[in-house]
């Protein structure tokens, strides 16, 4: 059985259109102990979930175009009025009004700061990032929240200035299309497919 003919999905007229194969079942195996007694069975299968980004779609599209989008509450009656949210929040968490999309690329390029970080060799199944992963949590001027991401060049340190890079060549349309590098990094040092936007 192969997954080469794996399925694709489109949305047409407000409906999902599935084409191709989405799930693969495999025969189960018995599980026995040292004495040959039956303990259980395996339940192997491959499957694909479909997931909509909804109001966050512009953010994930933007990454592939070299843009870091945030949102802002523009409700003048709200305590959070003027607050910029990264992670991108579709609605203001206080007044629940629809936020305005704001382009934060330039703010981030002027120098975001590593609030904290972590380096780990351990990953879970389906990880696609090279190991070790250098997690960095990044603060921006004028943004009350702290975004999680990963560092692609150099070693992280609290307080270090970083700038965003984007997978603009072959985007995955996931959060992995956004990464960070130290401020003075050269374009030649970036991982394949990534640019400064």
């Amino acid at each position, binding site marked *: 059985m192969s997954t080469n003919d794996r399925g694709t999905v489109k949305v047409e007229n407000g409906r999902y259109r599935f084409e191709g194969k989405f799930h693969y079942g495999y025969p189960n195996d018995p599980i026995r*102990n040292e004495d040959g007694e039956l*303990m*259980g069975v395996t*339940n192997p299968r491959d499957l694909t979930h479909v*997931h909509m*980004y909804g109001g*966050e779609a512009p953010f*994930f599209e933007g990454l592939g175009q070299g843009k870091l989008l945030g949102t802002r509450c523009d409700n003048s009656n709200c*305590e959070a009025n003027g*607050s910029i*949210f*990264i*992670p991108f*929040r579709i609605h203001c*968490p206080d007044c629940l009004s629809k936020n305005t999309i704001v382009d934060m690329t330039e703010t981030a390029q002027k120098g975001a700061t590593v*609030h*904290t*970080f*972590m*380096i*780990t060799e*351990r*990953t*879970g*199944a*389906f*990880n*696609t*990032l090279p190991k070790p*992963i250098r*997690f960095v*949590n990044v603060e921006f001027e004028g943004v*009350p*929240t*702290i*975004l*999680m*991401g*990963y560092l692609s060049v150099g070693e992280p340190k*609290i307080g270090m200035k970083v700038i965003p890079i984007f997978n603009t060549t072959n985007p995955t349309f*996931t*959060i*992995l299309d956004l990464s960070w590098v130290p401020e003075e990094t050269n374009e030649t040092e970036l991982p394949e497919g990534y640019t400064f936007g």
Partner: protein
Amino acid sequence: MIKFSKRQLKTPKMQRPVYLVTGGMSKFGRSIPEKRTEELVIDAFVEAAEFIDKSPAELKEYIHSCYYGHFADHFGDQLLGESVIHDRLGLDPLGNVGIKTGGATGGSTLWEAFKAVASGYSDCVLAMGWERMDEVPTDEGNNYIASAADKDWETPLGHIYTGYYAVMAQKYWQVFGKEEDSFRQTMAEIAVKNRGYARMNPHAQGPMDITVDDVINSPVVAYPLRALDCCLMSVGAACAILCDEKTANELTDNPLEIHVAAGSHTLRVADRRDMEIPLLPNESPDQYKDLGNRFPGGDRYPGFTGFLAARMAAYYGYRMAGVIDPVEDFDLVELHDAFTISDIQTYEDIGIRPYGEGRTYVESGDCYLTNPKTGEPGKLPANLSGGLIGNMHAVGATGIMQAIEIGQHIWGRWAEMHEDQSKWDLFGRTKPDDWTNLQVDGAKRGLAISHAGVGSHVTATILVHPDHQLERNES
């Protein structure tokens, strides 16, 4: 800045008092291939019935509704697993509901059970929790656990939950621990203590007789966290029976009053916004004014270093029970020691120590049964069960296990439940030659903290001997 309204901060007021009558636990292990989850749940239930000299059938006659804590459905590939358990316990047609709040699931299950009795809906309820994370390969398990983080913004980053927590540990380690060797040593002491206490517990999965150096030399998981700084991953079950006063006294001579409160915070740490520190009864508004001077980088609250959910669970819970100072008012605690460093963070969130000074709870010796510095009883022994590091973290069962352990101390029956050779034999475990009774003499009140992941949910369960209630300010 986030602000909370007066209504949001109201002290919960129940319709009637609620009592813990009994509880029981299964064996805990990394894997238990010879038993289905249903069998482990029955083991826990039978222990709870026997604890009050009832047969399982007799105890079941009292139960009116059931609360089931089980976090990770996807591990078992069985939705409505609660319904399977409910049927195997023979509790149909009673109403039942599943509760899921990550690592806090056990505590949240008690919270729901508590409210069901307090409201008058039921006079006697079952709170049962379990978890089974052994039936997938380790890397698939890591992915499944990581799916409790935000699936678009976090999970793709390595599919490894430890990493999402570890960034917080790093921040605390640098800002409040100041990367000092002495702080590293204090973290290690917690791991030594809890694994050592686990040696006296026949249920425990991770007993170890180790030293501080063993912890500091264990492999790095995500610096500064090392393998021996981290909690266990377990299979097992635990249950508690909660009743109103009348029913409690029919079932036992010795019920304990129980209060449960809960708090929450953003699933993504990235979404946390700054606020003023909500104060516990033993804190004053000006005591944190210079926190940022004493600990540069530590002036952002809760930032990445405080658990607001734990603070709020204590905020509500202490006021419900009349607790002013946890060190004075409690005789023991069971804390959610997922990692040694998060244990230290929690001391501050729940007011055992002020923010920034959590380490001194360990360094003073207060957290031990016998203070190693003075040879006197510790002021507030912590995690005598072995905690999550030494005993177990069978997620849905953990918060319930903690409450039962505390109950056994207040009932003065800790030794009875941990010493008996037949239990060690039943679980296939060797009782150590130097087995020691960890009973806290004269324990009257205790606290259990149940905590989810990076702090999305936390509950505070408070148990009080009815003859030793604290004065409550009814304002």
